[in-house]
């Protein structure tokens, strides 16, 4: 199709994957056109590699190599596996929305049990509803790159959540992605629309069922937050140790609203969580935080682009990585302050703790400031555990492992404590504790 561009085997393979998948992708007419345009964009850009600045440290051509074919529709056996995985991943009391191998499974989900003011539909049903003129818009997003285009082309399903103006959700909504099929891809795309004055907590969990290995999870979440609303989004990624997870969050925040975002990456051989957050209404506040807990040869990338488009907004980012063995963590944080965005207050701090000489942390904070009356700052550190602190604890009777664990918990605590929901904060903390214990 495009003779001017030299393609790798990988890219040729992708065209085939798309052609093969076509029959499984919901939506015709305009939806199919958008998908076709998206795959064309992807084909033009190709799988991101190290010469693309935004992907410099996460070269998918080297790390991921190819896009795997779509996972088959989950059958009865797959659902039985998924049910088992769900039992340990599901949060008590949350409204569960479960996707197995990229497909919403109604029988595992609380689709009907919504709280007042919440509507949940599947992406598939909306894309297939030819009466909905705007349906193709669900595959478009303000921010885009090769992987977001690929997601738009290939998305099989997802959840589309609407929260009415003023709705105050008492319990969190939890989207659980369960991978059952090995050596296959799942492409999911979800939307969350939060009305003015509404308050919502969304948890997104990624887990592997039983023997699922070597799979790829490709996810996108598009969120629009109205005015004077509060949204907490906690993402807990615990995919199989040889899996790939590429997720993009694209979020727009209205005036006077608060977004509290938290990501924990524990799983996956190769992962990237990228957030594109636009402060689109004055007086909004963003708190974006995360931790990477990586060991073995895991590669985890968290990339956040915070776009201050309007004045009087505040953004805070706290990111922590704990790396053992030959693990590799990447944090890229860019704060953009547009010419009109006076009185912007933006700060980010990223710290990596290296428990082994062979671990690697790349921290790349960037400020792009076009306004002249702003307060912006960033900091980045990488290092080992402080020997003087370790000795103090050991002199008080703690073993080396106990002393390390206590200091690592404290190091992570600075990020985990930013989670607003008490149960979620405790849960995230216990996941970190579990990771530390498994290390010892």
């Amino acid at each position, binding site marked *: 199709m495009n003779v001017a561009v030299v393609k790798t085997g990988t890219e040729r393979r992708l065209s085939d994957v798309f052609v093969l998948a076509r029959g499984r992708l919901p939506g015709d007419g305009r939806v199919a056109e958008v998908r076709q345009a998206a795959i064309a964009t992807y084909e033009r850009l190709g799988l991101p590699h190290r010469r693309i600045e935004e992907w410099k440290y996460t070269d998918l051509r080297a790390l991921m190599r190819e896009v795997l074919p779509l996972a088959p529709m989950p059958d009865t056996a797959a659902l039985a596996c998924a049910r088992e995985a769900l039992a340990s991943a599901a949060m008590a009391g949350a409204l569960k929305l479960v996707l197995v191998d990229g497909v919403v499974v109604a029988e595992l989900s609380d689709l009907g049990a919504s709280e007042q003011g919440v509507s949940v539909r599947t992406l598939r049903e909306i894309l297939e509803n030819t009466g909905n003129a705007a349906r193709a818009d669900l595959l478009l997003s303000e921010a885009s790159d090769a992987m977001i285009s690929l997601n738009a082309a290939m998305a099989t399903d997802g959840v589309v959540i609407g929260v009415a103006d003023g709705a105050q959700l008492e319990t969190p909504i939890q989207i659980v992605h369960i991978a059952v099929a090995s050596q296959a891809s799942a492409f999911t795309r979800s939307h969350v629309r939060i009305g003015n004055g509404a308050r919502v907590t969304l948890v997104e969990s990624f887990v592997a069922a039983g023997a699922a290995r070597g799979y790829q999870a490709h996810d996108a979440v598009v969120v629009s937050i109205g005015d004077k609303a509060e949204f907490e989004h906690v993402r807990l990624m615990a995919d199989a140790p040889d899996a790939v997870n590429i997720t993009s969050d694209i979020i727009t925040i209205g005036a006077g609203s608060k977004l509290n975002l938290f990501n924990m990456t524990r799983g996956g051989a190769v992962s990237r969580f990228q957030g594109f957050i636009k402060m689109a209404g004055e007086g909004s506040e963003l708190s974006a935080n995360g931790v990477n807990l990586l060991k073995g040869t895991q590669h985890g990338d968290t990339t956040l682009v915070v776009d201050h488009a309007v004045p009087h907004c505040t953004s805070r980012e706290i990111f922590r990585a704990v790396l053992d063995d030959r693990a590799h963590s990447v944090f890229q944080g860019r704060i953009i302050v547009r010419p009109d965005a006076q009185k912007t207050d933006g700060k980010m701090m990223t710290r990596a703790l290296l428990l082994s000489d062979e671990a690697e942390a790349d921290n790349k904070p960037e400020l792009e400031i076009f306004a002249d009356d702003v307060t912006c700052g960033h900091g980045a550190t990488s290092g080992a555990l402080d020997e003087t*602190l370790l*000795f*103090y604890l050991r*002199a008080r*009777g703690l073993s080396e492992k*106990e*002393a390390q664990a*206590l200091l690592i918990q404290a*190091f992570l605590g600075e990020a985990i404590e930013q989670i607003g929901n008490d149960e979620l904060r405790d849960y995230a903390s216990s996941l970190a504790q579990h990771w530390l214990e498994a290390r010892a």
Partner: protein
Amino acid sequence: MMSLLEVKNLQVRVEEREILHGLTLTVNTGEIHAIMGPNGSGKSTLSHVIAGKPGYEVTGGEILFKGEDLLEMAPDERAAKGVFLAFQYPVEIPGVATMTFLRTALNAQRKARGESEYSTPDFLKKVREVAKSLNIPQDMLKRGVNVGFSGGEKKRNEVLQMALFEPSLCILDEMDSGLDIDALRIAADGVNALRSPDRAMVVITHYQRLLNYIVPDVVHVMSRGRVVKSGGKDLALELEESGYAQFDDAA
């Protein structure tokens, strides 16, 4: 009777430099020893080597604690056996609540000795009692270990730990540094409350002032990595007048 602590002909290097050149010191249970001396005489090195701080190379001599070879033990084993070093500069540990730290440390020591862990109510009761006697407010215990504490508060926190862990040997490294007279009095009162026939203390200090509050049984003068003179509590007063210069040649 066996001595609690026997330091015999101890030689210690840091990197290529020898700091202690054959130091000998014997401390019996129930005694309070003061070690005085100028900067660089090796006082803090001695305290660090007894506690097991990494970075010191023992090239000769031995340290016996309750008859056992202390140098063979990891720092946490020494703590569990009853060695306590009150740090000259207690570290700040952000993110570790003081209460969590105290409980983890106490239970780790008890576990190492084969004792049962404290129940939460018993532990809280004990901490509150000790904290009250040391004038340590409850909110300090909720904060990160030593985070935002004043110099006096940090030293009181060390004394609090001493009271809680009930060690048989307390080494107080320059406890008076950075303290005003009121803070010093509170910390010293805390230490005096822990004087016991079952416990020994080694008080390391530059100045005689601290020894007005914690009155020693024995005073040692250190110079250039050795104990050059030992005597009763009056030796400290003598030093205050004559200074350390007289020992320079002796060393």
